[in-house]
């Protein structure tokens, strides 16, 4: 048994468990926290895969900004527990079934691609953190410059949109 493998399994369990927790928890706050745990484990996964920058960005953006935003809104809207019993009784079984099918399909499709390259190569060159970041930066500002710029506009638009959406009408209610 490889220590890495054990580590990996533990992490995997953590990720899956937190996902399950997200699914079943009645309280929205708990669900948000479970998601944070999930993000964290995924970040470690990124590290193990030799993407340090991405891992840290995950922590910073996802867990740090997005989830905080979520929590703000949960607090704002009142995280009351919704009453049990939905309007669509057949939804749950059908959804579980479909998700299972989806899992198998997606897994199968992706795994098909895996056959071409059997095993990971020695990770020395890729583990080097600085190289990965440098490569990312170079690519980002040369080949993928346009998407980069467009993304910035997108962020601008999102900001403006968020403000407008939550703006109250003049004199509507005070």
């Amino acid at each position, binding site marked *: 048994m490889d220590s890495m493998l054990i580590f990996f399994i533990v992490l995997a369990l953590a990720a899956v468990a937190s996902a399950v927790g997200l699914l079943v928890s009645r309280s929205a706050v708990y669900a948000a926290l479970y998601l944070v745990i999930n993000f964290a484990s995924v970040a470690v996964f990124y590290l193990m895969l030799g993407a340090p920058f991405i891992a840290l960005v995950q922590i910073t953006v996802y867990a740090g900004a997005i989830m905080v935003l979520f929590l703000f809104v949960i607090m704002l809207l009142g995280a009351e527990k919704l009453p049990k019993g939905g*309007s*669509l009784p057949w*939804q749950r079984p*059908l*959804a579980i079934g*479909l*998700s299972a*099918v*989806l899992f198998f*399909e*997606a897994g*199968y*499709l992706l795994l098909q691609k895996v056959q071409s390259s059997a095993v990971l190569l020695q990770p020395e060159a890729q583990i080097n953190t600085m190289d990965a970041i440098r490569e990312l930066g170079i690519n980002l500002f040369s080949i993928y410059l346009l998407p980069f710029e467009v993304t910035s506009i997108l962020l601008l638009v999102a900001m403006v949109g968020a403000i407008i959406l939550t703006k109250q009408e003049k004199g509507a209610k005070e």
Partner: protein
Amino acid sequence: MENSGLFSLVPLIVFLPVLGLLTNIIFGQKLNEKAIGIIASTASGLVFVVSLLLGYGLLASGGHEQLVPLADWIQIGNLSIPWQFRVDTLSVTMMLVVSGVGTLIHIYAIGYMHEDVRFKNDTKRYARFFVFMNLFIAMMMILVSGDSYLMLFVGWEGVGLCSFLLIGFWYEMDTLARPSWANSNAAKKAFIANRIGDFGFLLAAFTMFWYFGSLQFGEVFASAEAIAASQPGVIMAITLFMLIGVTGKSAQIPLFVWLPDAMAGPTPVSALIHAATMVTAGVYLVARSWSLFNLVPEAQYIVALVGAFTALFSATIAVGQYDIKKVLAYSTISQLGFMVAAVGMGAYVAGMFHLVVHAFFKALLFLSAGSVILGMERGHHHLPHHASGDGHSEEVFDPGDMRNMGGLRKQMPVTFWVYMIGALALAGIFPFAGFWSKDEILLDAARNHTLIYILLALAAFLTAFYMGRQIWMVFFGKARHEAADHAEESPKVITVPLMVLAGLSILGGALNLPYLENLGHWLEHSIEAVVEHGAEIQGYLAISWGGLNPVVALISTLVALVAIFLSWLLYGRRTLAKGEDDPLRKLLGPIYKVFENKYWVDEIYNAVFVNRFVDLAGFLAEKVDWDFWHDWLHDSVIARFFRWFTKFLANPIDLGIIDAISNGLANITQRSSNALRKVQNGFVRSYALSVLMGMVLILGYLLLK
């Protein structure tokens, strides 16, 4: 060459009257009466001129017949019946008589119809009269000029039609101008009686065609002897069938009944058609078929008997009539009997001679009778209590009734004199025309057929008697009605043709005087007369002063004079007073009644034939047509089936199937839409579910590919 040129004019005799009648049809209502009359008379007159030219052409070329083809009429395989004209002396004689007398009558009719349409209050009908008259001339010309029995028949039928049209000219009234079926019934009677005769003619034609293979005169006459030798009885049958046709057209026993009723037509019609021309068609037919008749002496004898009996029979009826035209009608039948007897005995020349002169004086008598009737009408209209013009409301006045007349010779002198001439000619008094012709017939009868001679002699006696009776009653004595007192003479347009005809009646004998025998020689080219049984004639009958036998002539003159004397005794010495009855009634008693009622022939015919036919027609119309065919068959069977069928189509098929289909489609649409509507339930989650389902399916498809 000029001869053939003349003969090519012959189609004009048909087409000129046709042209005249077309002009009067198209323009009749726009022209005035004089113009209409002139057009018609000119057409007829030109036909006379053409006939004269044809006669001249024949004379110049030796009298041989000329055939002038006009057109191909029937062409079926080997059968070819052309429309061909035959110009020979017999046909030209007929043409001259018809067109000559016809033209005079047309001119007379201009004046007569002018007054008649005013008496009957329908001046618009004037043109129609002349259209029909010209049509008659055209048809008669076809009859006499045809070269085959079929062409003759076309004309035969055509004159029958014209007779119908003209007798029923005033179809909605009777002779006294009251609304009635009488005139149209008389026209129908003429047509039907003629039709029965035509049936006989057709049988003769069919038989002829069957055995001879042709209807052309030349071919038939050429092969007549051969057929008579090989198939005896055929010619007999043909000639006897022809006799039926003759009795129809020439008013002999038993089909004569239409001619007295035909007096319902205007007087020019009576003169032209029923005295001078149409009724002589039968005599012409027999004369034309002389070669057939000569082969069957038995049939000839039957023809002669029929003619002789008819002559006597109708002469007796004429004695008891008191309508001026009816007397003349029965007289016509009687004289036709003379003609038919003559041609039956084989004396074709005598028969044709009598035909020609009879045309002259009978037309004269009829036209004068018309003049008398018009005079009576004029007198009636001038009576004081009719000055207001309110019509004949109190009494019905019959202008033709001799019992209303009397003393007319003072008011209508011209008419009186011409009437006298005509009567004397008819009675056969020397030297008027009738004497010569009647005498020839009597001579031939005396020589060969004694029975016929006796019958004809008696008829001649009666002829003179009833003509005398008529003259005394009409023109002498005192007027028996105020209308006769005020009668006026007719205008020139009427009296001039009368005078022309009177002249012809006087001079007509010159056509065939003894020793000269012009007509005889003329007709010899066409007719071969029966050879007289010279060996058997003995004694006084054998004397012949150029064809005239003095004994027979003397006897017939005496007979006529005695008859006239007797009539003077009864009617002339003491003329009839107003309201007085006929003195013959006292003399003859019940026999007079028989004469007066014309032996009740019409009543017998009605009971035996006509009413049976009416019953049959009624049965067929009521029971068979209405009850069975219309009511039962149509209503019960057809209508019911139809109603059932439509109900069947409407309910099960239309409502059940078709409506069900369309309603069903709508239903399906509604229900499926109701079902499908539930998909859109407004829940986002279910929409998301369907998105995921779609994705799964696509992925599955990609996987499985």
